[in-house]
């Protein structure tokens, strides 16, 4: 099967378009933060009496957001969504060009992971408006990651190596991409939780401006909850990815587990995320300590992608780098 060069070229152009759109979104998210005002929280009330539905006091932020900031936020989300569409187009055209699932090398894997991260962010940005204020901190790493992927990991669209020609590619790599993309968002949100809770602590000591840019971040409670929910969503997917990988390894390499570097780091990541989920419900670990664990998890995931594929030699040598 020879790759279709015109579709492959279209895929590459769409990649550039996506990066450009995401960059525009980053600017718009900046504008949203710049024009925002300090969030005012409604006092927590317990509704009572007269059959009125008791409105539950949630920790969600009720922002008295100026219209200008809100508008910028909407523009930013819309541009991000447009970018995600062209980003999806990158994957589709790439897959059509090579006539296979477009995750056979590191370039394709990384591109797919960032797409999942962006889509996961969009889901939250639509459902929880406060999360839009995180846009800059999610999309800037996405833009950086994509520039890095395009510059250093690029591989021509081509056929898969024999070892990857299995239906397990669809199962194992897809779930790994989903898990990674979701953990990507989760890790960034936990990092912002660390920033925000530090700001809150300084504010309490009177060492920080109550009207600072950081005050426009979602509240620490919201950040903690979003990070936890995404990790809870990602953990079973990652578990499944590891199990599916083991099943595939059993038929491809003669054993289901052999402490290949990639397997080892997938295991380390799994253990770190298990520790995060435990830490978040354990006294003494809740809050900042747990958030650090989640950030460590993301570092492990990135290390697993970059170091294990590019430096160490193992069976997972599908990077497609020269």
């Amino acid at each position: 099967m020879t790759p279709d060069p015109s579709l492959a070229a279209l895929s590459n152009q769409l990649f550039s378009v996506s990066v450009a759109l995401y960059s525009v979104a980053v600017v718009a998210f900046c504008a949203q933060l710049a024009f925002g005002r300090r969030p005012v929280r409604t006092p927590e009330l317990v509704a009572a009496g007269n059959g009125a539905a008791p409105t539950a006091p949630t920790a969600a932020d009720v922002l008295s957001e100026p219209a200008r900031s809100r508008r910028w936020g909407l523009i930013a989300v819309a541009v991000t969504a447009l970018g995600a569409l062209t980003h999806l187009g990158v994957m589709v055209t790439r897959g059509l060009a090579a006539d296979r699932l477009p995750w056979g090398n590191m370039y394709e894997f990384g591109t797919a992971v960032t797409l999942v991260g962006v889509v996961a962010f969009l889901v939250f940005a639509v459902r929880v408006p406060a999360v839009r204020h995180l846009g800059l901190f999610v999309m800037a790493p996405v833009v950086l990651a994509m520039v890095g992927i395009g510059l250093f990991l690029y591989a021509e669209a081509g056929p898969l190596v024999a070892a990857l020609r299995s239906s397990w590619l669809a199962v194992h790599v897809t779930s790994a991409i989903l898990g990674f993309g979701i953990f990507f968002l989760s890790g960034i949100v936990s990092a912002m939780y660390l920033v925000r809770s530090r700001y809150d602590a300084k504010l309490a000591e009177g060492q920080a401006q109550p009207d600072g840019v950081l005050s426009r971040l979602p509240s620490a409670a919201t950040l903690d909850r979003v990070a936890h929910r995404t990790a809870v969503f990602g953990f079973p997917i990652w578990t499944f990815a590891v199990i599916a990988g083991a099943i595939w390894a059993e038929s491809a390499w003669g054993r289901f587990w052999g402490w290949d570097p990639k397997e080892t780091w997938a295991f380390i990541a799994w253990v770190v995320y298990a520790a995060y989920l435990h830490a978040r419900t354990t006294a003494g670990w809740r809050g900042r300590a747990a958030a650090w664990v989640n950030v460590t998890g993301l570092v492990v995931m990135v290390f697993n992608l970059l170091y294990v594929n590019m430096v160490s030699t193992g069976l997972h040598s599908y990077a497609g780098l020269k």
Partner: protein
Amino acid sequence: MSVVAPPRESAAAPPPAPPSPGRRLAARLLHWWRRLTAMRTAIILLFLLALAAVPGSLLPQRSLSKTNVSRYFTDHPVLAPVLDRLYLFDVFSSPWFAAIYLLLFISLIGCVLPRALEHARGLRAAPPLAPRNLLRLPDSGQLTTPLAGGAALDVVEEELRVRRFRVVRREGVAGPELSAEKGYLKETGNLLFHLSLVALLLGLAGGKLWGYEGSILLTEGQGFCNSFQQYDSYKSGPLVSGADLTPLCIDLQDFRATYEQNLTASSFTAKISYGAPGQAGKDATIGVNDPLRVDGDRVYVTGHGFSPTFSVTLPDGTKFTDLSVPFLPSDTKTMSSEGALKLPDLGKGKDKQLALQGLFAPTGLVQNQILTSVDPRPLAPEVAIFAYQGYLGLDSGIPQSVYSLDATQIDRGRLTKVGAANLTPGQSMTLPDGTKIGFTGVKEFAALQFSHDPGEYWVLGSAISLLVGLLGMLLLRRERVFARVAPAAGGGGTVLTVATLTRGSGESGPRFAALSDDLGAALGARASKPEDSPRDS
């Protein structure tokens, strides 16, 4: 022997006697047990486990590649023995790695078993008593209704039973009350997840104890039977004895590698026949991602390469034909391969042994008299070989590689180079003593691996139940609803206080709002059409 102290008669309270050493020890052990099974300890152990796995991926491991480990020893002659003493080249079978995961599993069992017992009791027990002050719970509210207290609770009970809650009504101190609970499966999932981990570890251990794997290079036309003597290398668990091996023989009939236009390998297929020794074999085709599975054993193709074939004609006319030996690929892109053919037994005595060593190129290109390969397919096979005569040192007692000559024999001058040539099939070279060496052709070889792991299906089952438990634990919600009625202050009607406690995913606030909306609507509907209460209470 024990001494019983006489009873004291003094009226004053005796000073507390120091606890006996036995009891002190028990108390200390209990203290440590509680520490070990605490969640904080489990988190620390999880971290240690993650950290302990790191050197296993950064340093070469014997379980993955003995060659890389010995290369590390030559590159770092001072550091390597120190690391070796710390088991850093066998991380995953080291005592300290085992200590961490065993402690973790003891901690897990100590934490999960009591919870399982409690859960088993809880499954049969009624939902717990309602807290005294319901409005202190995070999700709570009050509704008023003209209905009588009992009728109002009937409505709540009905609504909750429709939502599959387990409901119990009690006559509390502060008035009639109701407790309801659902989502027991969440805790079941949690326990299933953790117990599956234990089962998985046991399956892994079983596979390590009773499993084995052997690997062998077979040139087309060759065969082997499943026994440790025949394998080039094998690993076996401590509880495996040679007699336990499945009697199975395999012949490699044909091997084929196919390539895409850009020379990406697209498939490797080996045609084999297999069966018990001495029986007519069944045919099968195996390849990458497609092993032979027979009676719990598996046979894999793990690699491939070329075996050039030579013929040797001695000066006296004795002819040896079809001498082939696998040359190991040194570059998988072009399949340029290296190897050695050792002929210790030509009938000329110990010091007249013959050996060939060199390079094989499936598609050869000679530039400046140096042979390279430009294509992995055998389009224009060519060898560049050196011929040696002398003593090979095969019976010296020192093990040597099958794929290269023993350099010490060459250095000592006991094995001397007597000729060199680049040959294509059909060509031959003549050594100074008149021996003629011909390159007659090439066959493909396949690296086969025979694996037996009795724990495999056990591990797979544990992994699946682990995932099921995990999904139940993370996606289900455990909810408790409490309700209490009291007569309204103004007389006539009832004040219904409702509260919920939720453990699990999602936000409880909106769900509580929806529940109390539904309760309000149901109460309103019941109040507007008076009918017989469905239940007398």
